[in-house]
């Protein structure tokens, strides 16, 4: 009897210690990032966030170009991945023959399983040359006379750049949008759908007026999760972004993202300030993805509460 209690107390303490270790890792991660980033923020102040310059020689650093590249590439990715992912979710939940549902669902999810470095070399050797030769000259010619859009699609077609990075990211986050949306569509009570079909609604009208409004919060959560993923993605982007520290209006110009900057420069960074500036970038990235996750969790939590009622 006593033996059993000692065993239980030991096992309980062991599991609790593991939980505390997890918490300690998290705290250590944040402390290490903040300490590492401190010299950069001390030197440049909050101006670090809005400064475009990135000059290792004069040790003048600003995060703006990297933050801008990160946000723009992720935005392009979401513009492509969200409609496609919702389309796939609509197809899988309403149109797909039952026998194909599972294989197609798994195939789409496999896109998420392919390591990001594979997307990187695929982007560099296949997508970038294709865009450079076929798509980008067309875009430049097409929008040359359209005010506004001509700035977005200006300059020589490099192949690599923000647009290419955005497209690669779109492929990578597509399965997240598609499979989470499919799951929240599946959670819509069948009664609602049947009622709509019963009064003669078409499949599209059911999706548009029943599925989407009901699952809106869940879909937003899925989009935010995918966005968090796109913001932090490193290897795929590093191959095709061009690593140029400047903010340019043209989507065809080479740029950089936070993660690509770190991947490209960290091992070659000499001097404490350079290293610290890179760690400060990673802190910014961590804060951004944290905010995305918190927002996504909040939305999904609200969804759970509602369905629990």
């Amino acid at each position, binding site marked *: 009897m006593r033996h059993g209690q000692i065993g239980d107390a030991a096992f309980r303490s062991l*599991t609790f210690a593991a939980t505390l270790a997890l*918490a300690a890792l998290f705290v250590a*991660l944040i402390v290490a990032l903040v300490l590492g980033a401190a010299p950069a923020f001390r030197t440049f102040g909050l101006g670090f966030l809005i400064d475009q310059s990135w000059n290792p020689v004069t040790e003048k650093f600003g995060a703006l170009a990297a933050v801008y590249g990160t946000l723009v590439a992720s935005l392009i990715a979401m513009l492509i991945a969200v409609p496609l992912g*919702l389309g796939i979710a609509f197809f899988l939940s309403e149109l*797909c023959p039952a026998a194909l549902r599972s294989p197609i669902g798994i195939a789409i999810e496999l896109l998420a399983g392919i390591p990001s470095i594979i997307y990187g070399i695929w982007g560099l050797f296949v997508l970038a040359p294709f865009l450079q030769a076929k798509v980008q000259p067309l875009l430049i010619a097409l929008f040359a006379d359209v005010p506004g859009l001509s700035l977005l699609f200006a300059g020589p077609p490099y192949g690599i750049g923000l647009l290419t990075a955005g497209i690669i990211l779109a492929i990578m986050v597509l399965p997240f949008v598609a499979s989470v949306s499919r799951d929240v569509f599946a959670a819509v009570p069948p009664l609602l759908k049947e009622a709509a079909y019963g009064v003669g609604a078409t499949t*599209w009208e059911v999706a548009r007026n029943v599925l989407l409004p009901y699952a809106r919060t869940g879909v937003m959560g899925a989009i935010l999760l995918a966005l968090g993923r796109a913001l932090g993605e490193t290897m795929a982007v590093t191959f095709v972004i061009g690593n140029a520290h400047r903010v340019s209006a043209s989507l065809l110009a080479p740029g950089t993202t936070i993660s690509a900057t770190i991947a490209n420069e*960290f091992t070659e960074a000499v001097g404490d300030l350079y290293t610290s500036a890179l760690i400060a970038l990673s802190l910014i*990235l961590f804060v951004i993805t944290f905010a995305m*996750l918190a927002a996504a*969790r909040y939305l999904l939590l609200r969804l759970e509460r509602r369905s629990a009622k």
Partner: protein
Amino acid sequence: MNLYRARRLRNAIASALAVGATAVGLCWLGMVLGILIWNGLGGLSLRLFVENTPPPGASGGLLNAIVGSTLLVLGAVALGTPLGMLAGTWMAEYGRYARLTPIMRFVNDILLSAPSIVVGLFVYEILVAPVGHFSGYAGVAALTLIVIPVVVRTTEDTLSLVPNELREAAASLGAPRDVLIRRLTYRAARAGLTTGVLLAVARVSGETAPLLFTALNNQFFSLNISGPLASLPAVIFKFALSPYKDWQALAWAGALLITGFVLTISIAARIWPRQRKPT
């Protein structure tokens, strides 16, 4: 009648677009895999597994990278699995209703979605910078940090699915809680727990970013974990960006190897729990 036709038309267009979106998704998968096989298959030979990575302009294999990757992944899974399982066990069993648990769940989610390059930087700061050189240990630590949240999440999820009646039955027979958990819940949840570990292996095998500043890379064969260690993803990264044709061919072959491995594991992780329903 006109309205009726307009609605039918709109439905047809929307359905066609949805089918199109799915086709685009499947085509993308086909294209990525197809080109990978097209470029990688030519380089696939026995030499990959018996020769080390060559100097520029020469031919060779990927032996040191394959061995290095195996060491790193095995190390990370061996360290991360017990820790993650224990923490997940506490959250699902002892601390199921504790106030700490939702907080820990959120903390774990943050770690799960933290960009892997940030994890790499963190490990660099605590394990590489103070020591002064890159090491396989640091690489293992970085990958472990990625394994842990995956295992915590799947452990907590699968343990929560074990019906409470099972626990009550064991408790009513007088089984202490630790015996109950180890003999009963773990067995009932075995399939799910295995899936978690498989997913962690799949996730970690292709990781490149956290290795760049920790294990770095090594041109030579090495089993020394306290020195820089080669890994498949790091070699692919270096070779793919190089101007040498031999290196690029090796990068494609390595990419094919690693993708084949990761996809096999993730498909296995999906099929496994269906075949072995917990009894």
